[in-house]
């Protein structure tokens, strides 16, 4: 599987993501700088975590409007799978590739801890390795992860199986839902399930040193689907 990781000024989980992709696919992803308007031909485009442009104005807002995003949107529309993690998820919603928006955490504090996710749809190229209803542990680290969508949108994404992951009871010492997200939503797909965004960081749960390797299933599944 060939992949590309988009790097914005302020991206800071690019290295974590590169390692996870290398681990799963055996190939080094291409790094694409935000000012570039071209992306090499790849099987997967990834927007990693961080604080692109400082998250000033709104998280992901400025990243979503950088030159490279025009190409990301075009590729996504032509069916190339796109994965956005944390800041990448925020940018994908800002760019209109995913429904909803990510608001400030309900308690207004940054949160970094391990949470448990329940896989809500296993019939996608991203989640094929998971069993229906399976839960897994992965860290979160964000200030704006409070997923919001209006009622109509909520019904639509629920009806169309676009909810990818929900926060569930498990690893966390605190409440299962770390940020107040609507309906415990931690990740969503686009209509065709070729674009996935999620707040948690599966890339930081791929090495035994991370305290768990549950995140590998996601990456291994993607590689399997796209190779």
């Amino acid at each position, binding site marked *: 599987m060939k992949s590309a990781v988009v790097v914005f000024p302020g991206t800071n989980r690019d290295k974590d993501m590169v390692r996870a992709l290398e681990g799963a696919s055996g190939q080094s992803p291409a790094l694409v700088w935000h000012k570039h308007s071209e992306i090499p031909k790849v099987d997967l485009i990834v927007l990693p975590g961080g604080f692109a442009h400082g998250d000033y*104005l*709104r998280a992901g*807002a*400025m990243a979503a*409007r950088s030159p490279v995003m025009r190409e990301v949107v075009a590729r996504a529309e032509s069916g190339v799978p796109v994965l956005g993690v944390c800041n990448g998820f925020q940018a994908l*919603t*800002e760019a209109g590739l995913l429904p*909803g*928006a990510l*608001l*400030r*955490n*309900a*308690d*207004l504090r940054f949160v970094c801890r391990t949470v448990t996710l329940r896989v809500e749809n296993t019939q996608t190229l991203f989640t094929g390795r998971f069993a229906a209803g399976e839960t897994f542990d992965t860290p979160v680290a964000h200030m704006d992860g*409070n997923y*919001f969508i*209006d009622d109509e949108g909520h019904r639509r994404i629920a009806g169309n199986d676009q909810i990818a992951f929900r926060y569930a009871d498990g690893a966390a010492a605190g409440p299962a839902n770390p940020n*107040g997200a*609507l309906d415990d939503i931690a990740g969503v797909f686009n209509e065709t399930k070729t674009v996935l965004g999620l707040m948690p960081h599966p890339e930081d749960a791929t090495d035994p040193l991370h305290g768990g390797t549950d995140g590998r299933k996601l990456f291994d599944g993607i590689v399997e689907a796209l190779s």
Partner: protein
Amino acid sequence: MKARVHVTLKPGVLDPQGKAIEHALDTLGFSGVEEARQGKLIELDLAESDPERARAQVEEMCRKLLANTVIENYAIELEA
């Protein structure tokens, strides 16, 4: 000319900052606050001096960047 943009959350969108302000005001003993909402104020200094063109420009800025219309409304005020 100067433009002032108010970006506010749409009705129905959860406003954690507003809620936190309500709560803090209450804790501080300010009792009569029925609701608090927090939005953004963006002040722009524009080279454009024609009000109509300025407004059109700022409208476009709002749609393209300053507001996320999935969750936010915006209002523009111009000052000479």
